[in-house]
């Protein structure tokens, strides 16, 4: 084994960009909750964007590298040391054989990402290396990382450059991909049953804060706030669900779905969190307060297109930088 797990961290999982296209089998997409952060970590290692990384939750793992490697850490700001020496996030970082990587506590936010050059070479399940704890799918039966696990970098870098010989003198500005403090406002596309909330509830939804409940995970972020009520009971049969869906169960406290959400469900729908704000949802930790603001679908689609173009431009710029620093043949 090239990389040995000394401590697994609070909840560390293998994640790539998920397994789309299987909803009709009851199989959800899973994948990185803050997908742009994983993509940038992959780019910094010269990996394709869908290589497998580790998603770290609140407290990071300790890993011993038995062979040299290049790594990058992005997402929520986390204590990041190699053999006791602090390292920069949002930059490629070399690991020498025998070095120990310690990822500690996050100063804010909830999820950080570790990429290694070549990606983590776990066995793909249904076309993806993403862990779905809820569905028990993914490397090692869908369980999180454990002490004693062996990790092997894969070979998913064929078309990318040699890595620099020493630590580059540059690092990325995490903004706008990660703000110092998570932006605590989420834009919401009002959904099918929004108009059936009482006027008081509709007003409260967009004017009062909601707090992230401790019982939140990649399946759903449970919110505590003003009790929301329907004008009359809504009886539904199961229909398709997506990450970002804001449902209202009978408790009156909404749940925002995450990447491991069920593919179908029968609770009434308040709305859908804009796709560009899913990374913000991913970075909310228990106790954080957030607000919803209404947003039209057209703006959300335009924002998603704009973000995708910006992300692709950044990935290309990182590749160019890595090539400039690479040793000449």
């Amino acid at each position, binding site marked *: 084994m090239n990389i040995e797990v000394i401590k697994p961290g609070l909840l560390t999982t293998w994640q790539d960009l998920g397994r789309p296209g299987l909803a009709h*089998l*009851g199989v959800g997409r899973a994948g990185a909750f803050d997908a742009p952060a994983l993509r940038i970590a992959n780019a910094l290692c010269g990996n394709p964007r869908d290589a497998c990384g580790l998603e770290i939750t609140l407290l990071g793992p300790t890993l011993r590298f038995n062979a040299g490697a290049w790594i990058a850490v992005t997402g929520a700001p986390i204590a990041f040391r190699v053999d006791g020496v602090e390292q920069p996030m949002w930059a490629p970082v070399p690991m020498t054989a025998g070095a120990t990587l310690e990822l500690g506590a996050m100063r804010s936010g909830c999820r950080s990402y570790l990429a290694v050059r070549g990606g983590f070479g776990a066995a793909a399940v249904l076309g993806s290396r993403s862990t779905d704890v809820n569905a028990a799918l993914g490397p090692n039966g869908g369980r999180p990382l454990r002490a004693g696990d062996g990790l092997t970098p894969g070979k998913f870098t064929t078309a990318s450059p040699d890595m620099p010989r020493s630590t580059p003198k540059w690092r990325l500005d995490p903004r706008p991909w990660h703000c110092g403090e998570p932006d605590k406002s989420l834009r919401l596309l009002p959904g099918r049953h929004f108009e059936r909330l009482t006027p008081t509830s509709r007003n409260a939804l967009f004017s009062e804060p909601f707090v992230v409940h401790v019982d939140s995970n990649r399946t759903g972020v449970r919110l505590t706030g003003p009790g929301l009520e329907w004008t009359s009971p809504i009886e539904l049969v199961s229909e398709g669900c997506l990450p970002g869906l804001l449902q209202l169960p009978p408790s009156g406290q909404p749940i925002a779905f995450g990447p491991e959400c069920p593919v179908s469900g029968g609770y009434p729908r308040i709305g859908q969190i804009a796709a560009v704000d899913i990374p913000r949802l991913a970075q909310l930790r228990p106790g954080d307060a957030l607000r919803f603001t209404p947003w039209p679908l057209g703006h959300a*689609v335009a924002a998603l297109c704009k973000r995708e173009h910006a992300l692709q431009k950044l990935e290309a710029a990182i590749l160019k930088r890595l090539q400039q620093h690479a040793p000449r043949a």
Partner: protein
Amino acid sequence: MDFSIEPLAEEALLLRFGEGIDLDVNARVHAATRALRAATLPGIVDIAPAYATLLLRFEPFAWSDDVAGSFDRLATALHTSLLPADSEAPDDSSRQRLPPGDDEQRTGPRSSRGVRVIEIPVCYGGECGPDLDTVAEHAHLAPDETIARHAIAEYTVAMLGFAPGFPYLLGLDPALHVPRRAHPRTRVPAGSVAIGGAQTGIYPRELPGGWHLIGRTPLALFDPGRDPPCLLAPGDRVRFRAIASDEFMQLAERGG
């Protein structure tokens, strides 16, 4: 085919064919699913049928850079693709003409209507079905009669959900409709055949659950290492065959 289109997110919409749990509405959902798979529209990522709706997930960039036009263009393509599906629903003799979708490539026995019929062996009662007596009492039937009524019906896989490969089956004898357990179990064994309200279903793996367990099948409903991973696909017909516990053991040892 009559349906409405509801945008759900930037890259997803819901086609609605009716309301509630209804065999005819569900049949139209499956006919539309087949038609859309056959139409191979560009950028479609997911075509996921439920009772009365069909979730369509697509790559937003595949349709249009022009945001306002994107949904309109997709809606037009959907209406065009689903026009021929009219002749199919609700009881289609034309199904075999369509190229198979990826959930229909399994070779299995087909009824005269071209629909797959899957037989599922079930060991009813005893350790395999600890709630059989409860269901029988509720139905005012003897346990044997309860088994006979459950096994004689032909069911339709309305949808897969809850967990990978979990089939929601329509067609349960109304006498066997039983409200869910007041206290759900934290662990329902894999393969358990259960009744929840007007539906029957099969737990693909050990899961928590509130349905009444009346039997167990040794077949693997879901195996991610198998192609296809699910024993059943939406729209399939299912028949149960009662087996004794020694046959259950034999089949289980052979790995289902």
